[in-house]
Each structure stands twice: as C-alpha cells, then as structure tokens.
C-alpha cells in the first residue's frame, strides 16, 4: 500500500498542480499590488538598498518565500508543461520531495500539449491555454509546431519475449552523419547548388557550354566553382568524418545482453528490440527499455537524465513488482509472453504498454518503467530491462531536433545586395546588347573583315547570354566560401579564448554556430534572465536560539550551534529537531561516490541546506521511495515518508509527513516566514529571536526560510488522509481543494528556526552590466523569479541604481493595464521614446494584458523609454514573446542569454542566443548559438569578439564586392571600344583565377586578422561597440559607396593604361602590341590596386596581412611569367606566349605600375585621412592612442594611471606637448590648471594667467583632456605627482 499509495499521491498532487496552473488563474498572489502602477519617485539610497529591500520585504511582503532556485526561474502562470525538466521547474520553486514520475500527471501534460498542437520537443515550452494571439504567432514564427503529429500517430508494436523478432524494427546503430560514402557526392552537390549563388554559377557554367556563346571559354567558371566546391567539400568531409567517428564510438560501445540463455557482451548496434539488457552502475543505457528488475530494494533505480533534459539531479525509476523477482539468467530466459506498446514517439513522459506474461494477468506498463536511451544509471548496481525502442526510434533520438537556422543581419543584407548586383548585371548586359545593336546598325554593313552578316541571325537573347557570361563575375563567386572559412576561424578564436575560460568548471566559451559571429557586434537589446545569478556559495543556518554564523562556501560551521547541541544546552532537542528536519524535508537524492555523498537536487538551495546540515553531523544518506535515512551523530535513523505536501506559489511552503524512527507521526514544514508564523501554535518558542535573525539575514541579502514542525496523532492523520484522498480526486478546482486540505493539517507548528541562503551573483556581473550599458546595449531582465527577487538582483547587479525611479506595472485586468500604460506614457510626455533614467518593472500577469494588440505599441514605447526593464514571473513562452516583440517592432538585434531550460525559447527566438553552461544543465547551452561559462564573459564575447568579427566580416564582404566590381567592370569599359562584341580584355583563365588565386588571400586576412583596435581598448571603451552596433560599417549606403569607389577605380584602371598604349609604340624595339598586352597591363595594375586597397582597409597589419598583400602581387607576377611560356608546350593561351618578356621589358609598364595604383588609392587615402581628421571618430582617437603607446609614448590615460613625475620633468614634458593643453587637477585648489609650452619654466599657467608657484606643485593629479603623446615618463625616486586614482 505504502509504495503505491505514495506514488499516486504525488501524482495526484502534481496533477492537481498542473490543473490549477493550466487554468491560468492568477490567484491572489499579486492582488496586493492591485492596480497600482504609477511612477514611484522615491529613490533608493545607497549601498544598503538591497538589504533594505529585503528588510522591507520581510516586513510587509512575502519576500522570504522558499528559495526560488537559481536558474529554475519557474513560471507558475497558466502554463502546461510536457517534459520532466519543466516539471522540475514547477517543483523547484520550493523544496519538494524526491523526483518520482507521476504517471497520471505526465500523461495529462502530454495529452494537453498534444491537443493544443503545441509543444516543442525537447524543450520545456508548450502552449499557453488562454494566451493572446501573439503567442500563436510566436509559435508559428519559431517553427515550434514541428511535424510532431506524424510521430503521434503511432502504431502499436508487439514485442515477443525470448523469441526471434517477428517484425523488423529499427536497428540500434545510429548515424548522425550527414553523408555516407555513397551519398556524399549527390547530397553534397544538391546542398551546394541549392544555394542561389552556386546555382547561378552552375547556370553560367552550363551556358558556357553552348557553342560560340561564351566569350571566356568553356571551363573558366567551372574551374573556380570546382575549387570552391572542393574547399567547402573538404570542410564538410572533415566535419562529417568526426561525426562518423563519434557515431562509431557510440555504436561500438558494449553492453550486456541475454543471448542464448547467457549474458553476453554485445555492441550497442547489435542490441535489438526484445533483448533483455543488463546495465550496471554508471553505464549509459543503449536503448529505451522497460525496467523489469534492479539490484536495489523495491526495484528502484536512479538515473541521471542530464543528457535528455539538462537536469542534473537524479531521478528514481521503479520497476513493476510483478517482474521484480526475475533476476537470474534462467528465470529470464524462461520468460515468455509479449509486450504491447505504443509506437515510437518523442514524448519523454508518456508510455503506454502492457506486459503479457504467460500464465499471468496482463500488467500495465507506464512511463515509470521506461528507461530512456541517453540516460545514465547511477547509484544502482545493475538493472535489467527489455528493449522496446532502438536507434532512431528511441525517445532521445526522436527528440534530437534540427536547430532553427539563424541568419545574421549582415548575411541578409549581403544576399539582398547580391540580388541587386545580379539585377545590375542584367542591366549591364541589356545596355551592352543595346550597344551591340547600335554598333551593328552603324558599322555592320561595311565591316567586310568580320562578315557580320553571318552573325546577324543571332538574336538579342544570344547576345544577352554572351554579356551575362561576360559580366557574371560581378557576383563574387568566392564570397560564400570565403565567409564560411572566415567565420569558422572566427568561431575557433572564440573557442580558443583564454579570457573566456572558466576555471571553475573548466569550460571554454563555445561558438556552436559560426554564422552569427558578426551579429555579436550589433547587439542592441540583449534580454537576459536571472542567469546572472551565480552558484550558491554561502549557506547560513540560523537557529532561533544561537546566533547564526555566516560561513562561506557551503561550509556551515557554527560552533555555537554545535556546542549547544553537544553540551546539552536546554535547546539541544530543538537543535536536533531542526537539523533532522533539514535532513528530511526536501527532495534531494544522495549519490554515493566512494565515501563521499554527492547530493543531487533540482534546487541548489536544497542541496546547500542538506550539505550544510551534513557538516553538522546530520548526514542524509539514503533515499527510498517511501523513506529517507539520516545518519545523525553516528546513528542511522530511517524516516518513513507518508505524504509530501507540495510547494506552490500560493502556499509558499512545503511539508512532509513522516513516521519517525520512534514511530511518531510528525509533520515537517519549511516555508516563508510569514506563512510559518501564521501557523505557529501558541506554545511555540523563540519567535522573537528568530524574527531578529530573519531581519538580520534579510539585511545581509540572504534568502530566508523558516522551519517548523508539528506532531500529529494517528487519528488526526487518518482523518486528514481521508480528506486528502477526497480532495485529490476532485475534478474541478482540485488545486484549491488540495491546498485547503493541506492547510488543514499544516497548523499548530512549533517553530524550530530559520535558515538563510545566499544567492551570490557570479563574478563581475555588475561590472559587465555597467560596461554593456555603456556600449549602448539595453538590458532587459526577463525572469521567472518573483518581483522582489528580480528587483534585488537588478540592484545588486547595478542594473537599477539607487536613484532611479521605478514604474511598476502590476495589474490584473486589461483595463487597468491599459490605463496604467497610458498614464505613464502621458507622464513621460516628450521624453517618451528617449532613454530615461527609469526602471520599468512588470510582472507576467500584467504583461499578458500589456501585449494585447491595442496597447502593445504604447507599452513598447514606454518600455523603450526606460533604461532598465524588469519582467518578472514570466513563463518561458512569454520570454520568447518579448524577444519577438522587440525583434519585430524595434528592429534591434537582440541577444538572449540564459542558463535554464526555461530560457530555451527565448534563446532560439533572439537573433543571437547565448547559453550559460553552468549548473542548470545543458538544455540552454544546446539550443544556444554561443555558450559561455560566466555571464561576465558576455562582455568579451560582445565587445571584443562581436565588434571584431563585425568589422572583419563586413570588411571582408565589402572588399570581395569591391574587387569583383573593379575587375569586371573593366570589361564594360572595354566593350565601349570593341563595338560591344563581348570581347574580353584579359586572358580567359586570368578571369577565373582572379578570385580563387590572385586575390583570394586579402579577404581572408581582413576577415580573420583585422583588428579595429586592441582588445584592451575595446573593453576599456565600450563606446566603441556602438560603431558596429549601429551598423555604420555595413549598410546599403556603404555598399554602394564601395561599389562607386570600385567603379571609379575600374575606370581609372582601364582608361590610364589605354591612354598609355594609345599609340601602340611603347616598346624599345618599336614593336607594336596587341589587346592582351593592354590586358596584362590592366590586370597587373588591378591586382596591385586591389591588394593595396586591402592594405588600406587593414587597420592592423600583422605578418599574415603582409604575406597576403605582397604575396598576392608576387603570385600574380610569377604566374604571369610562367603562363607566358606554356604555349605551345601545353596547348593553352597562345596569345600569352611571349607577353611577359615584352610587358616586363616595357618602360611604360613600370611607369604605369607606380602611377596607376597611386592614382586609384590616393583618392581613398585622401578621403580617409580627411574624414579621420575632420570628423575624427572615437575609434581613431583610440587607435592613435594605442599607436603612440606602441611607440613608447604615453597617451593620456596611461599618463593618468601610473604617473610619477619629478618636478623638473615638467618643463620637458610640456615642451613635448607642443600646442596641446594639459590640465592639472591640484587638490585643495580650485579649477583645472593648464600648462602651455609658452611658459615651460614656470611650470603651470592657468588660463594663460595664473602661475603656480613651484612649491605648490606637489601632489598633482594630472588629467589630460586632449589626446597627445608623451615621452616615457621618467620615474623618479622622489615622486611628487603620484596619482592614486
């Protein structure tokens, strides 16, 4: 009875819980806030704000709820969940009992998820019940409604035990690779040619095969295309090879299977449906199987499911008692019967099956008995299971989903521009066609030497094709593959970054996708969740009697408490009871690791408490489904757990009813101080002391809990049990009736004490937030936490400052929300739309109304007018919806950062999703685009990598466009003098090798090594981020400007050599030249110009830049030389024969070699330098500073920081100032002082008048307000100008 009863009990409780939430009743939680939504203008003061907030909270609000888990910022508001991870989120709002799958509830959740057509496999997100239409849109937009239906309609499968397979099921071997040996070529080509650009070039290649149409030869596009396909093919092969290897590793893992009446080691891939598998401790399960037996008592087993749902706590599974005895080979091999179950599907929580054992009545099998592939057996010596699903039919694999492909903004702009360029190409071709028609019209008759009448039959279409082929290279063929490689390397740089390596868990940052690298440089609105909250570091256990001691790092070491306990202090019993309670009243699962016990808890708070009491000698050792064992002072006590009274946000407490080792019935409860105090019996002691402690804890910013117990009589309990059973079967409003029922027994508590837990922020969070704010990044906190918690976090991470007025929106009706929003908008008046020093705080309930289409706009305006926005109590979907809202209506690039499963939706919705790989499992990380270990690494990720990558990628793209336009527009210029005949001026292969050889390197160096300025500067001056953020370096304007520039260059590059060779007499022997001679001139000049242009774009020349720029020119010259000698040995390029001798010997060539590129680049140079001087950007300032630092000169900031100057250095120093102003701030004097070189001897003059006596020049604090360079300061032994700032 007990076991069964317990399970159903929990299940019902959960079901009830779910039922309540699914009705979306807001409860009275926020009633107290009512419709109050006005501007609060009383600023918070000083550093004590947080503490005060706590104090206030503990005073009048229910601030000291049971600890919400960090990361498990659960949403308890009108949502259904469908996965265990989501279940955990419910539960993890408060300490709760151990994880035991509740059959009924699981099924319900899944059913509901199905019926609504929502549900995103693998994530905690499912649809809302009564949410606005907006959500639907979000869902559709995000593609969450995946084709789940197909798997839902599943056939029943029958598995016969110990019999050969009657029907073939999926093999257990898996393959995640994209290609196989045979499918590689077709599949790869298909994938490549489904890209528009590649398809275009394929089209051109095909066109070139039409006889007489191609002006450039038949294979000149094919070759670069092949090279490009080969390069990305190699990349694909390497990546796929890794996947193959990983698959092989998995497939060849071994497990023990019952074969021919004996246990045999077989490889995973040989495991079949119907096999009986024996798995031992620590092993990963090879397939989905029905648990039939285990080594543990009560046929339970513990399983780690972090692979599946990212939850790090262990979960308990329990086999059917009917099969528990079947353990030996003999028993098992004599088993006969069948299992009937549903077909494979992706729902983790459902399983419907029946076990028919011969000679026994059928037994239903539920999800409790299904062990899933991907999970790991823990704390269990062995288990036996019958395999039901294998390979891709396992729920784990069914849940492996394609991540939605995100494309960066730059990529989108680029593809638009490619399209525009394509149109331009068509336009050019048409113009050329027209030219050809006109030319033929004017000349056609008389040109006897060509016999044009033979061609006059050619239609306009034919000519058009000729010109399309002629100009097709305007579209940069190598751009895609260049970007692919560039971004790959950029991602590697992110992965390699030592600064983003967290020693705490040895985790590096990881770019899981590389196609968003540049997007990192454009983030304008990251929305982050409570993920800033770090690992729990501090646990305080307060005790009503003894003064609590705050200790660090989970080390609870309160000598007084222990002393009192050991010395038989009058409070000894209370202390014992207090500690026992903390050992018993929770949902933690212990895991033995040798001698140590590792606590697996869904809520780190619970684990911390249990660990805390362990230090005090109360060790929680074992958990059974119906009991827990505690080793207190060397003795083992087993508590039988009868009921778990679940936590809910309404109740703000959690209780267990246990039978103590002595046989008494007792109720242990922990919860918020207010609810506990309400229920204390009159006999309760220490009430006053505890209150003082609570106050003290709150002041310290700790999360507090009160613990209390009550003894129950048998009669009382039985009576209550009846009530409970009744309540748990109520269909309508079950939650309420259950709560009422719980309330009946949770009374007459005896207070035991209070606990406090510190939820410490991760390192450097406030600093990071300050920096990000400076970088003009708006930060919105979207959290499932309570409002108070969220506000406190916002305070402690300096998102909200003490003097910042708040706007609070807490309404429970649409009208009220509308009114509040309008009211606030009016109050802001003209300041709306601008960033004001305001904080907007809104809860999920209000948000639901605020996002109605009528007021959505004004709400958004209001939110955008505030510097900080806090959204509390949000469901995962609401988080995603806010991100969607910002994305759609503001048009900003959004970044979502989070660590929990509830952040997945948001992470996938945002332009850039960042997962924090931390304690909360891997779900967020797995669905993110970038994962980092610490929130503070966001700073480096965005400000350094983001800014750099943006600069790099945009430069690379612009440059690729530029170089193509430069070369291929020349063909157009040439068309003007060759009668629009489509003749090319260069050798065929030069045209096709241009992108793949001669100018392939500079884009790479620009894309990989370019640095706008040093990492240090980027971090020191977050303002620099605004450059890339605003996208000023890459937009349509810049693109066309670059194209115009290329047009001018191409014009110069064609026109100047043409004029030079106008009279054909440029060789010393008087020889005349041909068209290719001119072509080679131009081509060489193009290469030089284009390479040097890359140099001009390069802000930071490292060795690779030099190699690429000079190397490219050299490669061309070498190639040119060799190529001029191949005919007739190799039958290509007869026209080229002898060109190199003539070209290089031609003085005009060398004279042009210097002047033509100079003319092109001088324009850019003058433009750049005038811009840089006239309208000097911050970036230029900083680069100047860096460069002077590199030259051993000290720029102002350096000067300010570490300066010790002897007095007599000042004249020297000032002399170096030339005309620049130096401001000196001298303590105890007024105003800044200026020094000018006019009066170096008198040291300082203020405004040109005041002369500071030498004797006063002590303790100068020097601040320089203009940028200039200093000679290295001479460090004196007798410093008189130390600046300590």
């Amino acid at each position, binding site marked *: 009875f007990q076991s069964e009863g317990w399970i159903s009990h929990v299940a019902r409780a959960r079901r009830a819980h779910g039922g309540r939430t699914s009705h979306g009743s807001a409860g009275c939680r926020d009633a107290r806030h009512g419709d109050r939504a006005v501007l609060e203008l009383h600023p918070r003061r000083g550093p004590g704000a947080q503490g005060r907030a706590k104090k206030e909270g503990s005073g009048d609000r229910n601030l000291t709820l049971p600890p919400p888990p960090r990361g498990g910022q659960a949403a308890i508001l009108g949502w259904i969940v469908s996965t265990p991870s989501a279940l955990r989120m419910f539960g993890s709002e408060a300490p709760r009992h151990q994880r035991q799958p509740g059959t009924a509830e699981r099924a319900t959740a899944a059913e509901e998820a199905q019926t609504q057509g929502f549900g995103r496999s693998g994530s905690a997100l499912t649809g809302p019940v009564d949410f606005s239409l907006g959500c639907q849109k979000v869902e559709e937009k995000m593609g969450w409604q995946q084709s789940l239906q197909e798997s839902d309609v599943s056939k029943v499968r029958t598995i016969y035990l110990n019999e050969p397979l009657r029907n073939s099921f999926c093999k257990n071997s898996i393959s*995640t690779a994209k290609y196989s040996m045979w499918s590689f070529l077709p599949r790869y080509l298909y994938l490549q040619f489904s890209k528009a650009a590649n398809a275009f070039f394929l089209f051109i290649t095909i066109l070139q095969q039409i006889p007489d149409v191609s*002006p450039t030869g038949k294979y000149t596009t094919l070759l670069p295309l092949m090279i490009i396909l080969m390069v990305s093919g190699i990349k694909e092969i390497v990546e796929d090879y890794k996947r193959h290897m990983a698959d092989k590793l*998995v497939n060849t893992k071994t497990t023990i299977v019952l074969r021919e009446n004996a246990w045999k080691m077989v490889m995973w891939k040989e495991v079949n449906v119907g096999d009986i598998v024996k798995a031992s401790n620590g092993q*990963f399960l090879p397939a989905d199987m029905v648990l039939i037996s285990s080594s543990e008592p009560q046929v339970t087993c513990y399983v780690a499911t*972090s692979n599946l749902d990212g939850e*790090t706590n262990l979960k308990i599974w329990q086999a059917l008692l009917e099969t528990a005895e079947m353990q030996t080979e003999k028993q098992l091999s004599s088993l006969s019967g069948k299992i009937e179950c549903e077909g494979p599907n992706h729902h983790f929580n459902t399983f419907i099956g029946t076990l028919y054992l011969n000679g026994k009545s059928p037994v239903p099998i539920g999800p409790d008995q299904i062990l899933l592939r*991907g999970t790991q057996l*823990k704390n269990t010596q062995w288990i036996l299971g019958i395999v039901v699903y294998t390979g891709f039919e396992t729920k784990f694999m069914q*849940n*492996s*989903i*394609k*991540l939605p492909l995100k494309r960066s903004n730059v990529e989108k702009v680029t593809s638009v521009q490619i399209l525009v360029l394509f149109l331009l190409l068509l336009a050019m071709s048409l113009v050329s066609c027209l030219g050809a028609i006109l030319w033929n019209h004017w*000349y056609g008759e*008389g040109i006897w*030497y060509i016999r044009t009448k033979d061609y006059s039959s050619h239609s306009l279409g034919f000519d058009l094709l000729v010109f399309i082929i002629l100009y097709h290279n305007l579209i940069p063929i190598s751009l895609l593959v260049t970007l692919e490689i560039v971004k790959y390397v950029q991602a590697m740089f992110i992965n390699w970054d030592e600064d983003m390596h967290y020693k705490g*868990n*040895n*985790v590096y940052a990881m770019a899981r996708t590389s196609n968003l690298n540049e997007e990192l440089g454009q983030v304008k609105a990251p929305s982050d969740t409570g993920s800033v909250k770090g690992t729990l570091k501090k646990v305080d256990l307060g005790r009503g009697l003894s003064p609590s001691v705050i200790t660090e790092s989970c080390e609870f070491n309160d000598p007084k408490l222990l002393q009192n306990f050991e010395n038989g202090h009058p409070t000894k019993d209370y202390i014992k009871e207090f500690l026992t309670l903390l050992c018993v009243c929770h949902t933690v699962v212990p895991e033995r690791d040798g001698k140590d016990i590792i606590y697996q808890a869904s809520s780190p708070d619970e684990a911390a408490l249990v660990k805390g009491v362990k230090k005090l000698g109360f060790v929680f050792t074992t958990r059974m489904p119906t009991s827990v064992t505690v080793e207190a002072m060397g003795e083992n006590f087993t508590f039988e757990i009868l009921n778990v009274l679940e936590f809910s946000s309404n109740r703000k407490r959690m209780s267990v009813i246990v039978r103590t080792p002595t046989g008494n019935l007792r109720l242990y409860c922990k919860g918020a101080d207010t609810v506990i105090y309400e229920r204390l019996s009159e006999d309760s002691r220490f009430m006053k002391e505890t209150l003082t402690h609570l106050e003290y804890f709150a002041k310290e910013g700790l999360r507090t809990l009160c613990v209390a117990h009550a003894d129950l009589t048998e009669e009382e309990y039985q009576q209550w049990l009846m009530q409970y059973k009744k309540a748990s079967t109520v269909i309508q409003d079950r939650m309420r009736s259950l709560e009422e029922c719980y309330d009946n027994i949770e009374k007459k508590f005896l207070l035991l004490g209070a606990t406090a837990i510190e939820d410490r922020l991760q390192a450097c969070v406030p600093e990071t937030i300050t920096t990000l704010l400076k970088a003009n990044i708006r930060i919105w906190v979207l959290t499932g936490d309570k409002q108070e918690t969220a506000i406190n976090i916002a305070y402690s991470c300096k998102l909200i400052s003490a003097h910042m007025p708040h706007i609070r929106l807490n309404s429970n009706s649409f009208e009220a929300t509308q009114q509040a929003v309008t009211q606030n908008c009016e109050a802001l008046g003209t300041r709306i739309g601008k960033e004001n020093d305001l904080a907007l705080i809104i809860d999920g309930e209000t948000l639901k109304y605020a996002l109605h289409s009528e007021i959505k706009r004004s709400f958004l305006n209001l939110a955008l007018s505030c510097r900080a926005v806090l959204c509390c109590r949000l469901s995962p979907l609401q988080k995603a919806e806010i991100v969607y809202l910002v994305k759609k209506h503001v048009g900003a690039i959004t970044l979502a950062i989070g660590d929990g499963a509830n952040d997945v939706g948001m992470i996938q919705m945002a332009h850039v999703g960042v997962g924090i*790989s931390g304690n909360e*499992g*891997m779900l967020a990380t797995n669905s993110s685009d970038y994962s980092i270990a610490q929130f503070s690494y966001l700073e480096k990720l965005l400000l350094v990598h983001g800014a*750099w990558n943006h600069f790099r990628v945009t430069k690379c793209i612009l440059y690729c466009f530029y170089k193509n336009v430069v070369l291929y527009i020349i063909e157009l210029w040439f068309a003007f*003098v060759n009668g629009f*005949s489509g003749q090319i*001026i260069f050798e065929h292969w030069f045209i096709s090798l241009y992108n793949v050889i001669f100018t392939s390197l500079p884009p790479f160096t620009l894309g990989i090594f370019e*640095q706008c300025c040093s*990492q240090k500067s980027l971090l020191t*001056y977050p303002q620099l981020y605004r450059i890339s953020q605003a996208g000023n370096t890459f937009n349509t304007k810049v693109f066309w400007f670059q194209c115009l520039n290329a047009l001018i260059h191409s014009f110069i590059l064609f026109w100047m050599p043409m004029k*030079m*060779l106008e*009279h*054909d*007499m*440029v060789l*010393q*022997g*008087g020889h005349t030249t041909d068209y290719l001679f*001119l072509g080679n001139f131009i081509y060489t000049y193009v290469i030089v110009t284009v390479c040097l242009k890359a140099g001009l774009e390069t*802000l*930071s020349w490292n060795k*690779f*830049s030099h190699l690429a720029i000079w190397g490219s020119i050299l490669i061309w010259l070498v190639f040119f030389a060799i190529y001029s000698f191949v005919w*007739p040995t190799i*039958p290509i390029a007869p026209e080229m024969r*002898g060109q190199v001798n*003539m070209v290089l010997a031609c*003085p005009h060539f060398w*004279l042009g070699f210097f*002047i033509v590129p*100079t003319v092109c680049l*001088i324009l850019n*140079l003058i433009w750049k330098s005038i811009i*840089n*001087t006239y309208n*000097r950007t911050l970036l230029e300032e900083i680069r100047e*500073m860096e460069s002077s630092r590199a030259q051993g000169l000290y720029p102002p900031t350096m000067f300010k920081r570490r300066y010790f100057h002897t007095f007599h250095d000042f004249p020297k120093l000032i002399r170096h100032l030339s*005309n620049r102003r130096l401001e000196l701030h001298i303590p105890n004097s007024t105003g800044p002082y200026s020094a000018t070189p006019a009066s170096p001897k008198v040291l300082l003059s203020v405004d040109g008048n005041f002369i500071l006596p030498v004797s006063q020049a002590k303790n100068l604090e020097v601040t320089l*307000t*203009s940028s200039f360079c200093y000679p290295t300061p001479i460090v004196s032994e007798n410093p008189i100008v130390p600046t300590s700032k």
Partner: protein
Amino acid sequence: MAMNYNAKDEVDGGPPCAPGGTVKSRRPDNTAFKQQRLPAWQPILTAGTVLPTFFIIGLIFIPIGIGIFVTSNNIREIEIDYTGTDPSSPCNKCLSPNATPCICTINFTLEQSFEGNVFMYYGLSNFYQNHRRYVKSRDDSQLNGDSSALLNPSKECEPYRRNEDKPIAPCGAIANSMFNDTLELFLVGNESYPTPIPLKKKGIAWWTDKNVKFRNPPGGESLKERFKGTTKPVNWVKPVYMLDSEPDNNGFINEDFIVWMRTAALPTFRKLYRLIERKSDLHPTLPAGRYYLNITYNYPVHSFDGRKRMILSTISWMGGKNPFLGIAYIAIGSISFLLGVVLLVINHKYRNSSNTADITI
C-alpha cells in the same frame, strides 16, 4: 542537419557539468595567434600622418613626369594620312573599286631630321581588330605549324575555315583581312632622282612570335609542298607561301603577317611596317627635306569609314611619342603636392579637435 544530439555526450559521460562526468580539458595553447595578440603594425591615417606621403609623391612624380615629357617631346614623329577620302588627295582615285592595281604618291616634308633608327608604321582607324568575332577567328595550332591543324583548322576560323573544300591556310578572319598596301619611301633631295630609302622588313615582329609561336608546317622541300592541300585566304591574292621571296620570311613566319596577327587593343591602331636603320653616326637616318611616299593602294577602308596612315617615328628609351604619361605624372604629382598643402591646413586646423574627453571619463 544541426542535430541537437551529440554522440560525444553518450561517450564522455555527458555534458561537462553533469555530475561525475569526466571533463576533458580542451585547453588551447596560449599563443599569440590563438589569443589574437599577434604583433601588428597599426597605420594611422590622419591628415598629419599621411601628409609626408603626399609631399613625397609630389616630389617624386613631378621630376619623373618632366623627364618623361621631355623625352616624349624629343621624339620625332610624322603621320601621313593617305586614305584619300579628300578629293584633293592623290589617293582619291584609288577609292573606286575598279582601279586596281592602284598606285598613288604622297609628298611630304620633314622639317627636322630624324636621327637614330626610324620606324615606319601603318595606322588604321575605325578598324575593330578587337571585335570578339575577329579576335577569335584564328587557329594558333595551325600557325604553329601543326600539320593536322593545317588541314583541319579550328572551328573558330569559320567562316574562313574552308574554301572550295580545301582548308584555308592561314585560316580565319584576321589572316583573311591582312593589310596589303605596299609603302615605299623616297627622299626627293636636291638631285632630280629621288633616292629610295632602304626599308628593312625583318625584325618587326616579336622575337617569340617569329621563333616560337609561328612556324611553317613541317616536311617538304619547298614551302609550297608544305602547304599542299590548303588554299589561300579568300581575300588574298597570293597564297601564304608566296608572301615573300626570302624563305625565312615566308609562309607563316612572314613578319608582316605575324605583326598583323597580333590584334590591336583599340580600333585606332598602328602596326610596325618597316625599319629604317641608322647608317652611321654622322648622318641622320632621315635628313630634313622633301620625301614622297609611294603607295600601292589595295586595302579598302572606305566601307567602314576607316583611315589609313603612314607614320615615321624615332624611338626613345620608353618607346614612341606619347605625352600622356609625362602629363599624367606631372599632374598627379602636382595634385598630390596640392593635396599635401590642403592636408597641412586641415591638420593644423583640426588637430586639436578631439573626443578624448569622452574617453577619459
């Protein structure tokens, strides 16, 4: 197919944060490359820093330009149009198609003597040698003496590939339209008998063309035999093996032919026709005085409004007369210098405008 599934998770013991999972350190090397700290030169482009560049460019380019300009100006060049479209021109009579053979004579005077080697060119205008259909209409294998290509020329030569069922050698439109005027130069001088100026017809083609690219087909004693089975281009009067009397300037390796086969880049072009070699240091090659040009007028240009010219030119170290480069160098140098001055002003004016105040806060 970015799958969420990572087989490694199953092998390594799950994600790094999973309890008990062994964490493989993927610590990268702390190298300058991987940490992106490679030493780099960071050029700063402001008025102040690029100033010297402009002055240097100016200072270098202007003298070079002057040098080139002077050199170019010292070159003697005379250009005589003999198209004959002008009715007063002696060659006007040759425009009518039935006047063949037509010989006309044009008188001209050299004001200054031409010293050193003098080069004689013919120039054509409005002749699109760079037309696509024209440029490709040749078979380089055939011209290289390939026997199979000789008898079976490339399709590119169409419609000048075969004539009367015989392959054309040399095939193609370029060869077919070869320039075939004959130019002779006479110095009138003081005596009544004009002195013919010796015109050298060898050495006018590129060395590689003459020796590598163009070869007569192998075999046979006489050239005629080697070209057996081929026919002359449609427009030609004589077959290719009768282009010249000298065997080393006949057939495909005839230099006039080779020169023609290098198709010009622009519709107005010159081709080297003859060399007038310097006789001695004492006498100018072409002394000042009256000359006449004897033209055997064959080549029709009237139909496409073309012009024909004869050019006599001396040559400097950098080729023939072309003032463009000199002017370009001088112009760019001056502009550069000017820009330098402008930058100097800008630099002076804006040097102190600064955002650093923002930075130091």
